[in-house]
């Protein structure tokens, strides 16, 4: 089997543990230490998980795009394995983001879904990610799966800002220009803790997930070219 170089599982487990610790600390701070926000009251506390999820969903999608580009330009199954893992992690975060967003929308606007550009873009992004994952599961040949899904990821990634701006224009009547107070220290601390917590947790899980993907691909690719009886075979 040709396994690409991957992070050790111990590093992944350590990252997951670190993420859990940071999330526990950040959530404790956000729920019980931070003061009430002036306008939003306690509902504001949803932001301490929502915003870190949003940052990381975008960050992981960007990294997945980087892996896709790297696979297309440089080749290497490690890039493909991490591409798959990051797509999945980003999809999980996008899903949670949609759920948190609609929980936030209910007390704030009185509806479960507001056609806010960010929330809508997240929903579109989630569907795009699910589409790419479906494409990966529908193609058996490892080379085609890697190339096609890399192309699809790049195309979907370019779409995200376009979707955001088109929804914003479409929905321009709703534009309201105030945000919760998140610049002062009591609000920043839980945001930061949770942001790095989600990053460590999902990053660690993605490293583990990439190992699973790499193993599966290695199995599909089977043994390396059997040695030639005479003459030199030049492995790709």
């Amino acid at each position, binding site marked *: 089997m040709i396994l690409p170089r991957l992070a050790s599982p111990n590093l992944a487990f350590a990252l997951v543990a670190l993420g859990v610790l940071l999330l526990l600390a950040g959530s404790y701070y956000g729920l019980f230490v931070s003061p009430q926000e002036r306008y*939003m009251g306690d509902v504001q506390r949803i932001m301490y998980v929502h915003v870190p999820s949003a940052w990381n969903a975008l960050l992981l999608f960007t990294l997945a795009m980087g892996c896709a580009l790297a696979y297309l330009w440089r080749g290497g199954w490690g890039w493909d394995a991490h591409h798959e893992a990051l797509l999945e992690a980003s999809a999980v975060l996008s899903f949670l983001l949609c759920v948190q967003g609609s929980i936030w929308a209910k007390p704030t606007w009185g509806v479960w879904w507001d056609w806010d550009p960010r929330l809508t873009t997240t929903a579109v992004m989630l569907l795009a990610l699910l589409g790419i994952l479906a494409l990966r599961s529908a193609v058996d040949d490892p080379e085609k799966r890697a190339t096609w899904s890399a192309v699809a990821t790049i195309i979907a990634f370019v779409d995200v800002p376009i979707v955001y701006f088109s929804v914003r224009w479409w929905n321009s009547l709703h534009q309201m220009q105030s945000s919760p107070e998140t610049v002062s220290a009591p609000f920043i601390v839980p945001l930061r803790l949770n942001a790095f917590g989600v990053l460590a947790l999902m990053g660690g899980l993605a490293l583990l997930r990439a190992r699973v993907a790499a193993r599966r691909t290695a199995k599909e690719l089977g043994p390396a070219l059997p040695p030639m009886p005479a003459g030199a075979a030049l492995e790709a």
Partner: protein
Amino acid sequence: MAPALLLQVPPPGIVEGGWEYVVAAYAITAAGFLIYAASVFARHRRSEEEEK
């Protein structure tokens, strides 16, 4: 940096209470992370065992 990524809020109009929404959001998020982590661990363990 931070404000650009936050959901917008309608101007005046103060939201009262809402702890149940906060609890729901945290609970669902925690459940999401837990379920996903469990599934990744399970898949990783299975692939590790298949290796042997």
